[in-house]
């Protein structure tokens, strides 16, 4: 793509651009959430959309996550394509029934009669001092629910391409946005048909010595580590599963076959996180025979997120965890 067809913008603005384009493209796309109208949403993603699309399409809801998700499901089965913003991913706990028992299962239990094209936007993760009830990374739950799709962009370009693909998808898509990414700036394709296809894993950085799988903010830490290691002549290959479910394992397996070394990382609590799933799939694959060393899994500590800033930062994997992991795999420590 020529840079002239791209524009520098934040992840937040890229999301908004994608949503705006899709709302112009299809008038059945509506957008609901708490304080997404005049207020522009807790993280500013919907700023200005009320003016542009009016009250019929930008709907402020009461503080009622169960009804919000259920309403989106009902609207989706009858012809609309709702986008739904849960202010903090933590509050999907209040909408799990509509999401898990209705949206995800409806098509199947009705024998294929219906479809539920909706996007559930879920700001996730720690780092803003919001403490235990506003900082969780719960993607692993959603990836354990057949019928849902789960995606998470890490760059502004991915944010735009993926939100558009999610809106066009005919299934319920959980769209996870790490709060620390909203201000991140990057080049974003202006092409209105630019999509990041659901079901893809992106090679963020080619390499040959060690494979790292990371997403969300952990990806940035992995890249920092790779930059650092590059100076020592170590070439890390970084893969970003922007679709967490169903995950495209092919590039990951190929990479492991090439490098023989794997680090899997996420911010979510290590136990029960997606890291285990990825490790298991690699071990089940032909890559197993190519592993030169035990796989390293980096994850958040198995604790709630604390308020204090330093404690908070200490919960999630940092650059040095990657660096030391790579050293360990390459027997440099």
């Amino acid at each position: 793509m020529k840079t002239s067809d791209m524009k520098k913008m934040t992840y937040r603005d890229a999301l908004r651009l994608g949503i705006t384009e899709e709302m112009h493209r299809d008038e059945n796309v509506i957008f609901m959430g708490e304080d997404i109208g005049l207020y522009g949403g807790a993280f500013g993603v919907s700023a200005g959309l009320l003016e542009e699309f009016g009250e019929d399409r930008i709907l402020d809801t009461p503080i009622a996550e169960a009804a919000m998700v259920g309403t989106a499901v009902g609207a989706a089965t009858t012809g609309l394509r709702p986008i739904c913003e849960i202010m903090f991913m933590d509050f999907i706990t209040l909408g799990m029934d509509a999401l898990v028992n209705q949206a995800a299962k409806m098509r199947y239990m009705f024998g294929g009669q219906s479809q539920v094209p909706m996007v559930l936007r879920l700001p996730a993760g720690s780092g803003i001092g919001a403490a235990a009830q506003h900082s969780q990374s719960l993607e692993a739950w959603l990836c354990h629910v057949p019928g849902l799709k789960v995606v998470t962009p890490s760059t502004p370009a991915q944010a735009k391409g993926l939100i558009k693909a999610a809106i066009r998808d005919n299934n319920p898509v959980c769209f996870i946005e790490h709060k620390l990414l909203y201000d991140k700036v990057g080049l974003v394709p202006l092409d209105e048909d630019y999509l990041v296809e659901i079901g893809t894993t992106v090679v963020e950085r080619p390499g040959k010595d060690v494979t790292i799988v990371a997403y969300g903010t952990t990806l940035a830490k992995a890249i920092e580590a790779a930059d650092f290691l590059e100076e020592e002549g170590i070439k890390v290959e970084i893969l970003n599963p922007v679709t967490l479910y169903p995950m495209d394992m092919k590039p990951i397996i190929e990479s492991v076959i090439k490098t023989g070394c794997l680090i899997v990382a996420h911010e979510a609590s290590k136990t029960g996180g997606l890291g285990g799933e990825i490790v298991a799939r690699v071990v089940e694959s032909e890559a197993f025979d190519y592993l030169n060393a035990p796989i390293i899994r980096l994850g958040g500590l198995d604790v709630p997120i604390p308020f204090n800033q330093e404690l908070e930062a200490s919960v999630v994997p940092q650059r040095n965890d990657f660096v030391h992991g790579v050293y360990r795999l390459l027997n440099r420590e």
Partner: protein
Amino acid sequence: MIELSEELLLRMYYKINQARFFEAKLDELVAKGKVHGAIHLSMGQEATGVMSCLALEEGDLVSLSHRGHAQAIGFGLDVNLMMAECLGKATGYCKGKGGSMHIADVENGNLGANGVVGGGFSLSCGAALTQKYQKTGKVVLCFAGDGATNGGNFHESLNLASVWKLPVVFLIENNQYGMSTPIEKHMNIENISDRSEAYNMPGLTIDGNDFLDVYNTVTKALRYARAGKGPVLIEAKTYRYNGHSQSDNQLYRDKQEVREWQKKDPVQKMKEYLREHRIFTEKQIQKMEDEAKASIDQALEFANASPEPQLNAVLEDVYAGGVN
């Protein structure tokens, strides 16, 4: 008063009998151990389910409760496909994947029965939002039980429907119990319809065993919602004769209570009405009953003759294909 044509009365009487026979047949099958899984019968409540659906206009939508056979039959579902679904056959509405608790006919506006108590409230709001947004002029009728009105979904959905003035009518079948729990033990009010005040929407309590009261009230409520005035809450007082499901030994009520309600049986009451008003001859009445019964015998034959789903069907229908 709403005028009832002969043709409509005929349809009403036929369907209420169909509902009764359909469930009597299911009850038999359950007793014989021929049904895998839970079945919730609504015998005793049929006037509510059937007549309220008959009040709908073409294109209106419904969301059914877990006790939804009479509702489905009132809405016009095919008893063959319903019976096949209850028996898990490939020819059923859901290809045997849903069973009694998930009978649906989405294309025709039946958004399905729901196994989650109260699960339909918010789905109905969503369906109603579509009608409002697309200006279809259609209304959504949402069924649930008395017990369901104690759940958060009830409250959040009614509030949302009221604030957004959605075209939806919430119809509560108050059969006096949530499973084994009598209404006095799960809420502290006399009339569930009074809960409408918390949302500033009309609330009405009716005799759910009186086919006319149900039909007339729902008709009026639908008009109100269709006119863009917002949602309505209706409570229909009624009673279920059978246990909650097949595994219920009914320690929580005495037989006398059941007998009292059986004296107010909705099918009998309608029959008496027809007789009193001499709208049909005894022969015509008998004929309708016979036809209704025959349709259920046929449905069972259809279901029995239907194939089981192919084993690979288990992997199908998880995701919709294509993109917008």
